[in-house]
């Protein structure tokens, strides 16, 4: 699992999407993160850890390759804008609904 900086993560995520256009799936996971880098202490051992409250962990994978990044409050605004644009740009293979077909060959005659 590769832990990247926010920008590098977005670049790699773009690559994951491009790679999976013909086959495979992109799985993105989002979870609140309290900043711990050490495993949980055994029972009876004191936990000298202050959980942070302002971070989240984002992981992405295309089955084989895995990437991840940590986003905190300071970066979330910028990251979320870029991230939303990325998702919207790449998740474009879905069906478009057009009940009212906007084709120009039949104009509504009143």
């Amino acid at each position, binding site marked *: 699992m590769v832990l990247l900086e926010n920008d590098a993560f977005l670049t790699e995520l773009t690559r994951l999407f491009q790679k*999976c256009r*013909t086959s495979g799936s992109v*799985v993105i996971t989002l979870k609140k993160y309290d900043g711990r880098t050490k495993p949980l202490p055994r029972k009876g051992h004191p936990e000298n850890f202050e959980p942070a409250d302002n971070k989240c962990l984002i992981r992405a994978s295309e089955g084989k390759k895995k990437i991840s990044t940590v*986003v905190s409050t300071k970066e979330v*605004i910028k990251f979320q804008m870029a991230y939303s644009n990325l998702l919207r740009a790449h*998740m474009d293979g*879905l069906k478009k609904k057009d009940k009212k077909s906007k084709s120009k060959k039949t104009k509504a005659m009143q």
Partner: protein
Amino acid sequence: MPYYQTWEEFARAAEKLYLTDPLKVRVVLKYRHCDGNLCMKVTDDVVCLQYKTDQAQDVKKIEKLHGKLMRLMVSKESHSVAMETD
């Protein structure tokens, strides 16, 4: 593991589940371009909420909910807050 039929119910249930225990809940998004579908799951490993779609109009909704949950996770407030700068 029910798949919700309406987006509204799913979004409401998802946010509610997150607020019950933010540290336990995770959000999973699976996109398959070759099959043209998108699936979103919100779970705390006890309750599992899922929404599946193949409609382009749902991408925006899913992406917005994703962003909302992300902001909830990084905010220090316990209730949902848009964006407050101290």
